[in-house]
């Protein structure tokens, strides 16, 4: 198992190099000058001499390939460089925002799991009944509704009309409620649909009939025999969703003014802050890969038939 994990981690290296190269090329292809981040366009134009001096210091006058090699060389040594926008080390900028991202992602995942899994089970057990119909209808709505729209609806209802919850911002746990529900809902819908279909498939298996015919209580049949065997597809979905929730919450972060990594990335692309963009991309890809690795390792625990080692 350890060898497997190490091998997977090692495979991350070419992936990360490749992805930073793609990012680098894309950021260099799109027009725009990073010095725009120093001044509002509204306030006029940067003094050309000062702008030139700053570009020189930022290394933007080097040949493009050299800029990338320098980045790689420093990145290998753990130095992701200095942000143009913030004049601060990139690592620090990302780490400052990571807690908020983790908090929102984890809370959304908790919302998705605690509602989605029991919901999916209930729907499967009562297939065709009113619980199933209404739950699956709700799920279709949850998957189809754009996040920003749902966010604004919740905000209007719970912050403006009913009051009690803050509309946006970051701080006490109360601030977490609306964004995590907004972000978690579509994952919840996905997860509960997946749970339902996995459970339905398992419930038709012979061993379930055997378990029932042995006279086991229905509760034991569902939770012990059926659910355990339905876990593999569910964990797969949870893994993919966790990857998304921990890295791709840009829209939710923007709607609720949540200070996470996704928003940082988008802002920095807009302002051509290449070092931070590279850092965020590395971070995002790394997170995604690690979550996927964790899921693969989990398979072995969930289903003893799966062997991760060759």
């Amino acid at each position, binding site marked *: 198992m350890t060898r497997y994990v190490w091998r997977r981690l090692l495979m991350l290296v070419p992936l990360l190099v490749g992805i930073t190269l793609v990012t680098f090329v894309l950021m260099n292809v799109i027009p725009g000058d990073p010095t725009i981040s120093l001044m509002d366009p*509204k306030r006029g134009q940067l003094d050309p001499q*000062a702008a030139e001096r700053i570009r020189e210091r930022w290394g933007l006058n080097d040949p493009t390939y050299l800029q990338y090699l320098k980045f790689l060389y420093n990145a290998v040594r753990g130095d992701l460089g200095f942000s143009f*926008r913030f*004049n601060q080390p990139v690592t620090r900028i990302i780490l400052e925002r990571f807690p908020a991202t983790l*908090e929102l992602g984890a809370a959304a995942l908790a919302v998705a799991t605690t509602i989605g899994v029991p919901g999916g089970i209930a729907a499967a057990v009562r297939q065709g009944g009113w619980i199933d119909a209404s739950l699956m209808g709700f799920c279709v709505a949850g998957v189809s509704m754009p996040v920003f729209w749902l966010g604004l609806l919740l905000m209007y209802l719970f912050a403006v009309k009913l009051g009690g919850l803050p509309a946006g911002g970051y701080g006490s746990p109360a601030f977490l409620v609306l964004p995590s529900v907004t972000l978690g809902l579509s994952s919840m819908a996905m997860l509960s649909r997946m749970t339902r279909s996995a459970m339905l498939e398992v419930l038709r298996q012979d061993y379930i009939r055997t378990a029932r015919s042995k006279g086991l209580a229905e509760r034991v049949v569902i939770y012990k025999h059926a659910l355990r065997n339905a876990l593999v597809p569910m964990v797969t979905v949870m893994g993919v969703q966790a990857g998304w929730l921990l890295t791709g919450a840009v829209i939710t972060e923007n709607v609720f003014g949540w200070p996470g990594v996704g928003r940082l990335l988008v802002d920095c692309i807009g302002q051509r802050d290449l070092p931070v963009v590279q850092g965020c991309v590395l971070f995002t890809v790394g997170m995604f890969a690690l979550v996927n690795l964790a899921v693969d390792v989990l398979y072995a625990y969930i289903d003893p038939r799966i062997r991760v080692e060759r």
Partner: protein
Amino acid sequence: MEARWAGRRRGVWLVALLAVVLGVALVATSCTRSAGPPQAQQTRLTRVDLYGDPENLDPILKDKITALVLNSAIFEQLLNYDVVQKKLTPELATDWTVSPDGLTYTFKLHQGARFHNGREIKADDVKYSFERLLNPDNMSPLSSTLASIKGANDFAEKKATEVAGIKVTGPYSLTIELAEPDPTFLLRLTNICCSVVPKEEVQKLGADFGMKPVGSGPYRFDSWVKDSKVVLVANKDHWAGPPKTDVIETLIVKEAATRDAMFAAGQIDYMLLGDPQYLKYKNDPKWANNLVEVPELYTRHIAFNCQKPPFDNKLVRQAINYAIDRKTLVETLLQGKAYPATGLFPPSLMGYDPDLKGYPYDPEKAKALLKEAGYPKGFEFEVLCTSHPAWGSPAVEAIQPYLEAVGIKVNPVQVEWGVMIDRANAGDFQAYMYSVCGAVHPYDWLLLFHSKSFGGAGNRVRYSNSEVDRLVDQMKTTTDEGEMIRLAREAEKIIVDDAPWWFFNYNKAVIVHQPWVKGLIPNPVDMDYQPLDKLSVEGKP
């Protein structure tokens, strides 16, 4: 039995993993949060930033409103510019004089003014701060602000170890000598980049000075959750007495609908309105009386390349000015959130001429002018523009039918802002649409039309009129304000008649506030640029 135990253990393992992930998340985040609820007796004002995180609060590193608003409360300069009274007011300098030749400025400093670390501010600190701005090692994009000081260029090129023109003449007095007269020099000193900073803190904090700024202003920096919130607390020891509100909290929320919800829920005390939000508040009796409006110092326009046909002909440029109904466009396209332009200067600029009426909407006159200019059948031209709703492609599309009515076909070419400016500087355009210039002195506005500032220096339209040049040159050496305004108005009249631009509108900036917020001012430089130390909260529920 064995198998059952193993299965249960795996289930426990899963639950434990989830719990650990959640636990780590919550602990990690709770550590980063600042202290608990505010004390009951404190007054707290919450504003919101539309554009994003201030990024860095070192006054010499940024010229972005997000940072400037906060820095104006944390730092102080020698002088301040009162945008409502349109005059200079003392800040760290109590007194200043200008020599008759306009070259030597003498400043007396406020005695007893202190940095937030308790140390008194002396004239040496001013010299240090100005040299810090000019020092090329500090990479300030704003160093040209003080470039007119004698010896500044030598210092910037490292030919001298100090700036020859800045002389400390006593603990509380200094003189500044300029290389050549600059009528805007005192105004330049009011820029945030000319703030006086404590040397010891700058050296101690290094690059972190921009993250934990230490100044001398009415507010101290307290805390900053990046991309979320900046908190300032009152400097009770400020020389002018403590400010009116104890805590100023700035929230960073870029989504307009979210700001609306937060404002409606009372989470925000005041906020700047975006264009699409304006009418909603204007038409709501609950908020209509809680709006503060101002024409900002920006003139939206289409700039014509005066050296290329057809716009090398003044009659053609005038014809376009007559051909479009700017008043209707302001009401429809911009939903009333602008003022139709009557000339170059917005009403809030020093020197604005209320008697100048500008171009009326007169398509017949436009046709006649085109005929006279030799374009009886009209022509076709391209306008470089951004996607900006008020001065970008939507506006160009809106004028298409007006110009078509007089036989002119206009094609918008949408590009990024930086690309547009590069091409405008290089003269590679027929016309472009833009919004300038934010300056509070008419001299800066008129420099955009001086024949010596072709290209990147500001005169991108390559407009040249010897009479305008003469008037602007004369302004440079004028110290009398009345005379200055007379010259400015005369130059403006000529420029408006020559019509190097299609004068479109002046931006109307609008703030909406809760009834309990007092002291907001109509600031034409940037509405968001409020004097935080003068704002108060009275009877907030």
